[in-house]
């Protein structure tokens, strides 16, 4: 009896005190992020005022960028999307489309439209991917930047991206989805944080080595290994020939919640982390990476469920293990527009995979957590992710169960409970509103008041409608990881921009 009492006393103490401290800490971290991201956004806007990107467009010394865009059964939109990628504004780039074993006529359409012929291409498999069958180049000079790789289906975007990296010629690669709409000046804007650092150089370390007689050297510069930018939902935007002509928040509820979530995650979250060089992840939807470091880190893991976060973590680990300074940068302007899951079913699949991926990354890189050898990665990025991203759904869900328990057993103090609920609710509203305000500071994306207001209102609905679903999907992902349940990657039924809806394709990819 005594033991039972002690147990319940511990549980009660945990939820009424420890969790409160945990919750307040989380909210304070968000407040800190809001301040940091404000600094970052202001700094970016201030610097951007005087930047003339046109000066750089004609320069022959800009580093080349390979755009890598995997395509699986994208027949409906592939031509428009490839054309859109080919018209980006940058002096030196190539577009590598990886046809990842499409079962429709994606490849045939590209062959016909872009006058492609098979070439004997020296493919160098520096990182693993499923076999490449053929590589195509265009006979039309207008498409000389285009390379099409036809490969065996690798059951993941990561595997296709690896094949693209192996084919690429330039020192940087931009990973994106072929159905994303990328702003024309994206490459210019994303290469800038890299070029804003010093050139590569070395310094001599110590006295001549007694073994070899030479003074050893150490690289003495901060290498920007990845750059990210804000992504936004394109579901209700107007698109003409692969270009966004009118920005609108999504009309449907589920994508609209995601729009708000993306703004909060990118403009407030990642931008804030960028200020203290602690960015945890560069999105798979749009990320510019240093190819050499990505290859040394092993590229994308084709079997990972969070391949983007996993690769960024491995790149950081590689840099730390080799005693090299690195930076990961974010820019707050929206450079990429993607189609968000339009239905609960697709959202469920996507977020369950993300939850599973997070667990997987935490487990795979557990040696990094609280490890001072990994600097900020070990002492800020991973502890934050573990405590406030990974544990949050578990604590929230168990907290609700505890609430139900004390209600049933009539142990609840209703006035205090109401105060706490109101506190959490309004704090959540405040953080989201701040994110929207910061976004408005960067650029007034929406044309009308009603559109901004409509998005702001989502902040009031999110804690009640959207957030519980996200928590549930995350927990489902954790469960799937622990039980090793097979996961269907699926292929989101893209509606296309200004296209008729595609027929639903049975997902062939399972791991």
């Amino acid at each position: 009896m005594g033991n039972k009492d002690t147990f319940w006393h511990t549980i009660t103490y945990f939820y009424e005190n420890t969790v409160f401290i945990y919750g307040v800490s989380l909210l304070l971290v968000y407040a800190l992020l809001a301040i940091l991201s404000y600094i970052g956004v202001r700094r970016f806007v201030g610097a951007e005022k005087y930047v003339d990107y046109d000066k750089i467009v004609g320069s022959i010394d800009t580093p080349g960028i390979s755009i890598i865009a995997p395509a699986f059964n994208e027949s409906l939109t592939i031509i428009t999307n490839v054309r859109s990628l080919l018209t980006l504004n940058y002096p030196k780039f190539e577009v590598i489309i990886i046809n990842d074993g499409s079962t429709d006529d994606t490849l045939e359409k590209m062959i016909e439209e872009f006058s492609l012929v098979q070439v004997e291409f020296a493919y160098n498999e520096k990182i693993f991917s499923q076999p490449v069958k053929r590589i195509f180049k265009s006979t039309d000079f207008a498409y000389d930047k285009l390379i099409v790789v036809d490969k065996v289906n690798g059951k993941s975007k990561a595997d296709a991206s690896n094949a693209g990296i192996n084919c690429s010629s330039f020192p940087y690669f931009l990973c994106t989805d072929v159905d994303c709409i990328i702003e024309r000046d994206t490459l210019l804007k994303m290469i800038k944080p890299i070029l804003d650092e010093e050139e590569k150089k070395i310094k001599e370390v110590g006295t001549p080595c007694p073994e070899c007689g030479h003074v050893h050297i150490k690289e003495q510069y901060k290498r920007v290994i990845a750059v990210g930018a804000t992504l936004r939902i394109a579901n209700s935007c107007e698109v003409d020939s692969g270009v966004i002509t009118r920005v609108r928040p999504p009309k449907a509820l589920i994508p609209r919640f995601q729009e708000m979530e993306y703004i909060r995650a990118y403009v407030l979250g990642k931008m804030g982390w960028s200020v203290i060089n602690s960015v945890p992840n560069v999105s798979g939807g749009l990320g510019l990476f240093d190819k050499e470091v990505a290859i040394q880190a092993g590229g994308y893991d084709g079997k990972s469920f969070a391949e983007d976060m996993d690769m960024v973590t491995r790149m950081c680990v590689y840099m730390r293990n080799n005693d090299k300074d690195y930076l990961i940068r974010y820019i707050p302007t929206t450079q990429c527009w993607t189609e968000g899951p339009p239905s609960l079913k697709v959202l469920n699949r996507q977020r369950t995979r993300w939850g599973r991926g997070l667990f997987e990354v935490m487990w795979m890189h557990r040696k990094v957590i609280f490890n001072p050898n990994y600097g900020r990665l070990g002492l800020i990025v991973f502890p934050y992710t573990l405590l406030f991203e990974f544990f949050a759904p578990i604590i929230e869900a168990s907290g609700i169960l505890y609430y139900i328990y004390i209600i049933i057993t009539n142990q609840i103090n209703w006035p205090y409970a109401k105060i706490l609920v109101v506190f959490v609710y309004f704090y959540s509203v405040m953080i989201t509103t701040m994110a929207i305000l910061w976004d408005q500071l960067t650029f007034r994306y929406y044309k009308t008041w009603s559109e901004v207001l409509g998005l702001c209102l989502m902040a009031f609905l999110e804690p009640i409608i959207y957030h519980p679903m996200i928590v549930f999907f995350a927990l489902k992902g954790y469960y799937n990881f622990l039980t090793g349940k097979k996961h269907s990657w699926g292929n989101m039924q893209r509606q296309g921009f200004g296209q008729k809806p595609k027929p639903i394709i049975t997902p062939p990819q399972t791991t």
Partner: protein
Amino acid sequence: MLSFIVADSLFGPFFRKYFYYYDSYPVVIQIAVFLTAVAISATIIAYLSIIFRRGKGYLTDVRTRKINTFIDNLITDNIIFNEEILAGVPPQDVKLDLEPFQKQVFSQGWVKQALVDRLIYFANSFSGDRNLLFKRLFVELELEKLSFNKLKSFNNSTKILGLVELTSMSVAVADVLILPLTNSRNRKLRSEARIAYIKLSKNDPFKFFDDATEPLLLWDQLELFKIITTTEGLTIPNFARWITYSTNKSIVSFCLKLVVHYNQHAAIPSIVKLLDNKDHYLRVEAIKCLGKLKADDIEEKLIAIYNNQPLNCQIEILKAIGRFSTGKQIQFLRGEFIRTSDFDIKKNAARSLINHGRAAKDIVQNLIDTATADGAIILKHCMNPLIKY
């Protein structure tokens, strides 16, 4: 602790009045109530800020659009369709009618600034006679005084704005005003000051290369390169001077790029000295520069140092031999192609062999016939005109 005391003195009376039991709440609940109040206040402030910013932005847009139309009409009538310019009078002899630009409306600061912005816009859009007229108008209306005042500001952003305006309108500025700014700790100010110095200095536009202690960042190099190569009437010095003596590696690296652009063969001896530099990144730049200058006299030296170099230098040496295409190192390239298992070395050796054209035709064919399947594909890859890289 102090913040809690301050917060309590500010908000305590309010809570005690409206939340009767506030003082009797546990600390946890008191904190929750306090943070709720903060969250609600911050949310309201955020909403007001959004409304204010959008409203202000909208009004500014409307106001700017209106005044810009007015200014554009004045500029169109007086400058673009200036009768004397149309009649072929040289721009320096055209009598500018300043009266329309000195109306009461231009006494307001923001209107004056709008006029400056429009003049810069038109000056950048037009070349030749009209470009000169815009610059004359800028000076005759004494708008450059506004820009000079900005240079005296304590605010770096304002200084940058002043520099941009003066540079755009090619107004001469004393070296003593700009030179200190070329080593500013503020990155953007430093960059703009360097651009301004190159464009506006009448004495020695490259003088700041001597004193540059702060690095010339890659982005700044691109901007500066564009300015140097497009500014008319700039006296181009021999960049070997800085390649030899500058202790600022970024200046040396930048000068190597300028040497290539201006094809300064006189700088080759200075560049060759860099081959002994311990910084392999600088050596790469030097080898690249020698290759692009087609300095084939140093081909033997490059071959001699080849085996002691890291991979990036070796690749650059192979590229340089391909650029020289003297025909003397065909066997060396062939040997490297056969010997190495490194993909990048093999590919660059193949490409350089193919660059030799007819002189290496038989050897290339022989390699295709005898090489491994992978080696033959690399050769065919490099020979295919559809594949650029």
